[in-house]
């Protein structure tokens, strides 16, 4: 599984810029991109892995870099 299918138009190499309303949350991004809420397993904001169960309520600020991954593993 990849999240590629959920990327908005104009994105490249799995990356996209998004304009959000003031006070928008991480959960809002999932809604806008139509990503089922249970799919993201690993969420990284500005390089820091998010371990909170309340991540969907996390308010984003201008310039935040958000990375979302399905469950992955290897090594």
């Amino acid at each position, binding site marked *: *599984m*990849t999240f590629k299918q959920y990327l908005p138009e104009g994105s490249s*190499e*799995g990356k996209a810029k998004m304009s959000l309303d003031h006070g928008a949350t991480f959960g809002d991004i999932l809604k806008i991109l139509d990503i089922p809420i249970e799919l993201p*397993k*690993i969420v*990284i904001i*500005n*390089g*820091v*892995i998010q*371990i909170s169960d309340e991540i969907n309520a996390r308010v984003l600020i201008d310039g935040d870099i958000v*990375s979302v*991954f*399905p*469950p*992955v*593993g*290897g*090594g």
Partner: protein
Amino acid sequence: MEGYIGKILRVNLTDGEFAVEDIDPDLIRQYVGGRGLGTKILYDEIDPAIDPLSPENKLIFLNGPLTGTGAPAGSRYMVITKAPLTNTIACSNCGGSFGPELKQAGYDGIIFEGCSEEPVSLWINNDEVEIRSAIDLWGKTTHETDDLIKAEIEDKFVARDTQIACIGPAGENMSKLACIISNKNRAAGRTGVGAVMGSKKLKAIVVRGTKGIRLADGKAFNTAIKSAMDKLNAGPVTSEALPAFGTPVLVNIVNECNILPTYNWQSSSYENAGKISGETMAETIVTRHKGCFACSIACAKCTEIEDPEFKGKGEGPEFENVILMGSSCGIDNLGAIAKASYLCNELGMDTISVGGTIATAMELFEKGYITEKDAGMKLNFGNAQALVAMTEKMGRGEGFGAVMADGGARLAEKFGHPELFMGVKKMEAPAYDPRGVQGMGLQYATSNRGACHVRGYTMANEILGVHEKVDPLITDGKAALVITFQNLTAIIDSAGLCLFVALCPGFLYEEVQGLLNGATGFNYTVDELVQAGDRIWNLERLFNQKAGFTKEDDTLPKRLLEVPAGPGNKVCELDKMLPEYYKLRGWDDGFPGKEKLAELGLE
């Protein structure tokens, strides 16, 4: 015996004698098999202080009780010896089909002693055992060796089913980075076990086995298989991510987390990571998927490079060496990384250590400590041609490659800058920067075979959130987490399973217990297995103590301890974790004391 055969073949290469011996079932029970049992045998039979390349060292190939039984991902054989790279205990673990075939031939393993004068190979066809000259094979690559041996076998169906473990030129030259290869591309990779095989002039082991494997309780075993398969099929990593992308699926996430070794760990993120990611590999060079014996995960990726400069085909690269040969060398050319990986498999070298050594050499070169005259080529970061050319020279022991073939620690020391070696106990570190994933730092420092990720993969919780989510930047609780993973891994390895089963949520002791009890009839409790994992870890530690290691060796490269980096802009706070680790292990002054030894029956 069930699950296990209870027989081991002992071969003395000095005088060409061999004998089949029974294995004490009590020892199997206490040490489970493979890694645990092999360590016990080695500990009892050699002086850990010996030179690993001397005839006094022994080379033990040993299966686990689940190897070849049909247990999911139960393909592994282990090579236990004293390690030339690290001077520690070595256990390198390999998939494919060699282990299962050896068990079908009626042996749990083989102990090689002494040293042959001329190159030889060992041929096993069930009860027939023969030592043959391998003069014609000496100098050949692992792929050529495999093909030549199979061409010698008249019946093409027998040839097809025959399994081979062999060394390439690197092992013959006793490179401390040499590995042992099976199925052309599966490796018992780390710590230089191929050099021990080379020191004994043993080129190959050729096995054909057609006997069955008895199980203690077939019904219970099938129930355990079903439970394990249900978990593996439901686990998204084992049923989707690894089958689709293989291990390089980690490249993007490790980069986004800012823990991706780049330019020999001078940086922890790489601007061109997307060019070498699993997703890019799947779109550009992967031709088909491949699995080891009885494995539903099939993480191996067959690849082909069309770029004329790096043209070739093979298997891999894997995540670890994409990073060590890629970002850590500042190289974003997937073709070059794949080509260097193919060369490692053909010449018989560990891809992680080769990448780590070249990255160290590149930093030494950039800083002027190694010159173009020394190296015979420019070794600047980003030089894809140099990566491939130097890998070949290392594998063949040519020119400066012969100097580099003993690894980054010895290289950095030789040129006066040991601080530029990025590893522990002389073994190159794998591809996770512990400044941003603290538990892995403690794991590297305390691993019994030097810097290693597959002795205690806390990444599973610290970054990937497999069993539970744990903050990677804190140190609290990491000592206990590392110990939990180290002991569990000792059991998964010793059982003969692939460690990737533990990337499946909930695939912990209970699953292994069910499989082991169905196969062996030992009726292990989980507590007994937890203690067996602890016993194995402690015995490995005792071996290292007798080999001359002290707790001062449980450390990390200066860069990781002193230069902040990563998402928390932190160093790896080893000093906060290590005392707690020793305490929770029950060790006095860094090693198990009388009380701990008595608890584990190791007096």
